[in-house]
């Protein structure tokens, strides 16, 4: 019933943006530099250039240049047409995408709906062993069963209705499907190339992509060079002719290369230098909050944390303002909620005590601990992976608990892989954690605290909230859905399974002659297509 009422609303949302081009819109009076080349640091070496297999931010950053999905993200983070020029939701679980007829692969072959069918099936097929297969696959009809190997990939809800029309059926209504299909994992793949070269299809010379750029050179651990793709449907609006990606892991080396003029773009600033560089390069230091949250997990099955009063007291007394301004000191905003600013599908639900004066918080926390029978001098163990950043935060939190509540935090540091396993196994008391949204919807965050979720590493489950999520998630009315998901998020957060600390942000140095960077892209999904070099 609910679904039928809103079908009209959905029809109204139908987009028809035929032929629109969404590349870098130059501000009036902008003069372009004669050489449009761009050198950017990209953090670390990508683990793969196969869009189905890639997992990390650096890999996906390059893949957004080499491949394009049905839709794409513009510089402000808005979903714009990609290979699909228009789309509509024909019923709550069915979407039809109309492909543009002038879209081609980099070898000149036209892109047809079957290329998407092949690419998406290949991605979800467990034989491809994609780490994201279930994360995105779960939204498609039969996606989870296919990812789990229980059904063949041909059962997946993707179908070519004709040469240029693709139908995607979802398991439940997915309001944000157009945003989701901007991910290159769900993009077209040139079947003949994959079959010809096997795993070497992603090497320069072999790769056939469909993005605004083509892979020219790949020296592992040294550089990846991409050049403008003349076959790209919107090539006329692509200004850069060459982009060089450098895998620079050391953040200080990254800054030095930028200062010496070797690069135009720093991947991310190290902690503790924000103010110094802000004073030195006020115009070049750009900072944007992105949808991700740094938090600590309680192992709620541990007897020490069974009592919600203990979990609440410990969370209350951490001064996020000082943590953000003085400790991490890199422009990351304080977080009092799992859902952070900028997330679509639910509102942040900051704790009511977040605005209390610290004295009041400490008094309340002491009372809670006393009621729970926790005495000063109680020890808890805290696990984190070795990193200066995490250490700084841990030392601060430990001192907050020690000085305000007399609680002793014994820290245990380890390699990331060890921590990841400990968290999934639940063999910790409190553990460092962090999450960057896989797609812009509240559900990517709720997965961290939902019952029976693989990503829930605090092992807490609020059945009532889970029922609300299950009720709200499939709704096609965005406002109603948002209300229910926000309510569920608040209910879970009031159980204190996690301690939200700060929202992620990306402070980076960018040369003033690089145009097209907006500071408004909540997932940092910039494409080189939107960048240009101003005359300097």
């Amino acid at each position, binding site marked *: 019933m609910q679904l039928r009422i809103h079908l009209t609303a959905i029809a109204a949302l139908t987009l028809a943006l035929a032929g629109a081009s969404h590349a870098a819109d130059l501000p009036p009076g902008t003069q372009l530099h004669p050489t449009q080349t761009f050198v950017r640091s990209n953090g670390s070496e990508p683990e*793969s*250039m*196969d869009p189905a297999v890639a997992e990390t931010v650096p890999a996906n950053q390059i893949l957004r240049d080499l491949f394009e999905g049905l839709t794409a993200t513009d510089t402000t983070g808005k979903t714009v047409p990609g290979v699909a020029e228009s789309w509509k939701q024909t019923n709550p679980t069915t979407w039809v995408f109309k492909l543009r007829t002038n879209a081609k692969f980099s070898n000149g072959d036209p892109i047809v709906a079957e290329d998407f069918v092949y690419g998406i099936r290949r991605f979800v097929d467990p034989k491809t062993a994609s780490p994201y*297969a279930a994360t995105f696959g779960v939204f498609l009809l039969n996606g989870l069963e296919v990812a789990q190997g229980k059904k063949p990939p041909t059962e997946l809800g993707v179908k070519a209705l004709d040469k240029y029309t693709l139908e995607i059926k979802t398991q439940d209504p997915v309001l944000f499907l157009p945003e989701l299909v901007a991910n290159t994992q769900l993009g077209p793949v040139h079947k003949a190339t994959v079959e010809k070269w096997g795993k070497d299809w992603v090497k320069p010379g072999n790769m056939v992509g469909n993005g605004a750029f083509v892979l020219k050179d790949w020296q592992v651990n*040294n550089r990846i060079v991409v050049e403008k793709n003349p076959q790209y449907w919107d090539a006329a609006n692509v200004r850069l002719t060459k982009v060089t990606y450098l895998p*620079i892991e050391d953040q200080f*080396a990254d800054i*030095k290369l930028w200062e010496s003029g070797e690069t135009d773009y720093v991947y991310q600033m190290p902690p503790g230098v924000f103010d110094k560089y802000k004073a030195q390069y006020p115009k070049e230091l750009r900072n944007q909050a992105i949808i991700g949250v740094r938090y600590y997990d309680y192992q709620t099955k541990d007897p020490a944390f069974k009592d919600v009063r203990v979990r609440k007291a410990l969370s209350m007394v951490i001064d996020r303002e000082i943590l953000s301004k003085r400790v991490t000191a890199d422009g990351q905003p304080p977080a009092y909620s799992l859902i952070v600013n900028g997330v679509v599908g639910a509102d942040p639900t900051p704790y009511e005590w977040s605005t209390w004066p610290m004295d009041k918080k400490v008094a309340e926390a002491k009372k809670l601990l006393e009621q729970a029978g926790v005495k000063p001098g109680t020890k808890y163990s805290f696990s984190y992976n070795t990193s200066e950043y995490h250490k700084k935060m841990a030392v601060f939190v430990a001192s907050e608990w020690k000085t305000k509540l007399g609680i002793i935090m014994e820290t245990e540091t380890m*390699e990331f892989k060890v921590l990841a396993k400990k968290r*999934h196994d639940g063999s910790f008391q409190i553990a460092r954690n962090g999450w960057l949204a896989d797609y812009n919807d509240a559900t990517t965050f709720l997965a961290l605290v939902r019952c029976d979720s693989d990503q829930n590493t605090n092992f807490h489950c609020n059945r009532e909230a889970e029922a609300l999520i299950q009720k709200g998630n499939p709704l096609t009315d965005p406002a109603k859905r948002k209300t229910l998901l926000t309510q569920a998020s608040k209910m879970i957060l009031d159980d204190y399974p996690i301690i939200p600390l700060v929202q992620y942000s990306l402070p980076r140095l960018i040369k003033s002659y690089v145009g097209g960077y907006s500071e408004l892209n909540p997932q940092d999904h910039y494409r080189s297509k939107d960048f240009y070099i101003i005359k300097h």
Partner: protein
Amino acid sequence: MWTYTLRRVFAAIPTVLVVITVCYLLLHATPGGPFDSDRKVSAAVLANLEAKYHLDLPLWQQYLLYLKGLLQGDLGASFRYADWSVNDLVAAALPVSLSIGGIAMVISVLVGVSLGIFAALRQNSVIDHFVMLLGNVGSAVPSFVLGPVMIIIFAIALKWLPAGGWHDFEFRFMILPIALLTIINVSTIGRVMRGSLIEVMHSNFIRTARAKGLPTRVVVLRHALKPALLPVVSVLGPLAISSITAALVTETVFSLPGLGKLIVNGAGNRDYTLVLGLVVLITVLTVTLNLLVDLAYAWLDPKIRY
């Protein structure tokens, strides 16, 4: 000498095998596997990944499969860098490390030995104090301080050289890393050479040579140099290994795609095959360099015969 060399080469085989076995077991005993991450992958995906890298087999079978590949010169597929084999990764990193580390070693030996000789012959003079200062600075100031200081001076302030990176053996990108490694190595070689030559110069056979009225140049070059070089040669082996395969700080500071970074990242990522491949490479290099050092002993010291 040839029989000795051949004997040493054969003796190296069990050494390499023991190193591989111990590393193999250690790697697999370390907690956290190659596919542990923030995102827990589904059981079906994990099963496929494990099958791809033979992790579904018992450990001894995996080990034998690895050895079989190794005998055929195949170091396996990298766990982390899915598109590359370990052979590809080593082939890309080895020339970088060999050229930076190798050139730095040659320069270090020439400069270090010369400075050591001058300092020893002019003990307690200005040049001696300078060499000792250089030696102490090179040893005391860590390369992660010295490297960035060099970048600030030569790349950012003076803009003479690039701050880092690697462009197909273009020499200007190699100067700063080579200089950094050279400063570190010269400080060791210079100090060892100085101490050793001072000691040799006080020995009886030098006094005899002097008594025969030979000029200092001949006394030093013909009589004192060879025995004084023995301790220097002893430190050269480990120094060369660390300059070529473990120049992690230099590679990080100058963003070089060398072996040191590969092995540290490989260990962190639990890239079993990559780490083992590099361990094999480093073991072979170490064994070879140790053999060369031993052969050099025989040339330097007539008392040593193989």
